């Protein structure tokens, strides 16, 4: 559409003013969005004196990463002073298996629901899809009780289970919508060629699924890494994910308030998903729109 709205009318003065106005407004918005990131990065590199004497947008006199090392390995979170490091690994140990399991389940479920449809397949899909819409507050309490029964309360495997279960509606949605557009004839041909249910899945469907696998990995990883509610509800102490630890670190009131450490910790917490966004932004956006518009 950009082509056709090309202001084909003559390049008048007003038009030029309009262009300047558009660019100015876009720049102002860009500042609104980028400013917090600049503030986080620059504050994390200042020492406490610089923070006290300078202001929000003043730049650090020199690049000083003391706050980073402190946030990573020394800062106090509640009463333990281990830095973010162990919590960061907790998040990774939680996110990687949860992403993989929920994607495998979603892929095979989406495949079965589209390519080997049985009576009621659509109803089952609709019922699974409903899981995308519920506010999680409505399952917190039974989940806390159930994790206790299962013996995984306050553990990483417990969080993996939670994220697999509540990620499943999204992964199933993604794969189902992708597989719906792969022609049924492919499955028929493979059936006649002698391939069974799982052979068709492994040898034909999965190799065709690369784009949607990437989209789903990014979506699930972002969701799980950024989660706070489940982490805060089902874990405590040393088993918390990094988002919960960050919040505790910021709100720990013992000693001097070290804002530079807060910002360094925030940056570390945001780093994995930000990197994913920067390197695979295209897939990230596709996941957002697919998950949000259709979900």
């Amino acid at each position, binding site marked *: 559409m950009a082509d056709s709205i090309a202001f084909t009318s003559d390049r008048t003065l007003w038009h030029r003013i309009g262009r300047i106005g558009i660019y100015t407004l876009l720049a102002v918005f860009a500042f609104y969005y980028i400013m917090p990131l600049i503030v986080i990065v620059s504050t994390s590199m200042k020492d406490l004196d610089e923070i006290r004497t300078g202001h929000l947008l003043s730049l650090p006199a020199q690049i000083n990463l003391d706050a980073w090392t402190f946030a990573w390995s020394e800062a106090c979170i509640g009463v333990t002073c281990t830095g973010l490091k162990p919590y960061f690994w907790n998040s990774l140990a939680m996110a990687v298996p949860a992403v993989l399991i929920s994607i495998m389940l979603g892929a095979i479920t989406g495949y079965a629901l589209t390519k080997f449809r049985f009576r009621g397949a659509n109803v089952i899909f609709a019922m699974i899809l409903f899981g995308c819409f519920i506010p999680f507050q409505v399952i917190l309490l039974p989940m806390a009780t159930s994790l206790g029964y299962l013996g995984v309360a306050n553990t990483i495997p417990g969080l993996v289970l939670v994220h697999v279960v509540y990620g499943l509606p999204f992964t199933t949605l993604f794969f189902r919508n992708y597989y719906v557009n792969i*022609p049924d*004839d*492919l499955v*028929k*041909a*493979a*059936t*006649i*060629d*002698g*391939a069974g249910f799982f*052979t068709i899945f492994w*040898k*034909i469907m999965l*190799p*065709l699924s690369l784009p949607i696998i990437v989209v789903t990995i990014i979506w699930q990883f972002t969701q799980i890494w950024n989660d706070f509610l489940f982490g805060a509800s089902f874990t405590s102490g040393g088993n918390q994910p990094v988002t919960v630890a960050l919040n505790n670190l910021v709100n720990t009131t013992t000693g001097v308030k070290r804002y530079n450490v807060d910002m360094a910790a925030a940056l570390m917490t945001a780093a994995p998903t930000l990197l994913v966004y920067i390197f695979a932004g295209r897939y990230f956006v596709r996941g957002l729109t697919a998950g949000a518009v259709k979900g």
Partner: protein
Amino acid sequence: MASLNIRNVKKAFGPMEVLKGIDLDLDDGEFLVLLGPSGCGKSTLLNMIAGLDSITSGEITIDERVLNNVHPKDRDIAMVFQSYALYPNMTVGRNIGFGLEMRKVAKAERDQKVQDAARMLQIDHLLDRKPAQLSGGQRQRVAMGRALVRDPKIFLFDEPLSNLDAKLRVEMRTEIKKLHQRLGTTMVYVTHDQIEAMTLASRIAIMKDGIVQQFAPPQEVYEKPANMYVAGFVGAPAMNFIPATLVAENGKLGVSMQRTAKGNRSDVFLALNDERKELADWVGRELVLGIRPESVTHKSEAELNGTRNLQHFDCQVDVLEPTGADTLTYIELGGREVIARVNPHNTSNPGETMDFMVDMDKASLFDPKTEQRI
């Protein structure tokens, strides 16, 4: 090499009956074409032969072995799909060999068979490409190669040419015909294109609303259509249907209908050369005369003296449509538009009256109520 028997086969999706009792018996080496409009159940029947759809009741056998409960892969059939259904992630070679791979054929033997099939279809230079890199015609050949390599008892084709452009379609049609002549394997071919059906089939089964309307060799379907539906579906331009009355004149049976000639409306009588007793019941009653355009031509004295039952009449010309070989001449008979195929050198101008000749040996008579052949 196999015979195929379909006995009283029915298919229902819930309360909807899609196939209402199909009976077809096919000898070894035959080429059956299932012809019909979309939704007539022809693809469902093919899928049932393949084992991709279940059989609600009835029986399908190959070489007298009942297949109802046999998995597709154990039926010894191969199928070519309209969309080709090539595996996009595999090379052409692996696509063709996939069926053998699944049947655990040794690699060396598999490669040899893939090579042979590819050479037969002239795609041996494409074996390392992916389907996305091929043209439509090449994909079609790969799909056929995949069926060929398996050396099955029966080949199934599901509208294999409808995704090709007109020129390629004719080419591939000939290719399939050659293939059948060379292999002599039984083939079942689904299409809605009557020309494909006529050119390829040893027998055509014309289907409509889940019922086989006629099951016969192409020429018989063309010359002696079982009902008005078949008559109208096969042949282009379609058969002319003319409301007429059966009358006896001078002891001869014939049909009578109105036409305009030289500005006057009057009846014309066309004598039939039909001695069947049943016809006597129809005297004085309305029926439908079915006559193909090529059986209505300009009057030729030389031919009239031959042995065929040629009748002639004059009629006003309405419209001319030259096609090169013939000129389609539109006239009005019995209140209906009728097309005659006239040699371009014998045409008259619109509005003029011209002498026509009808080959009544080729005429069909239909009951206007049941639309069945009389």
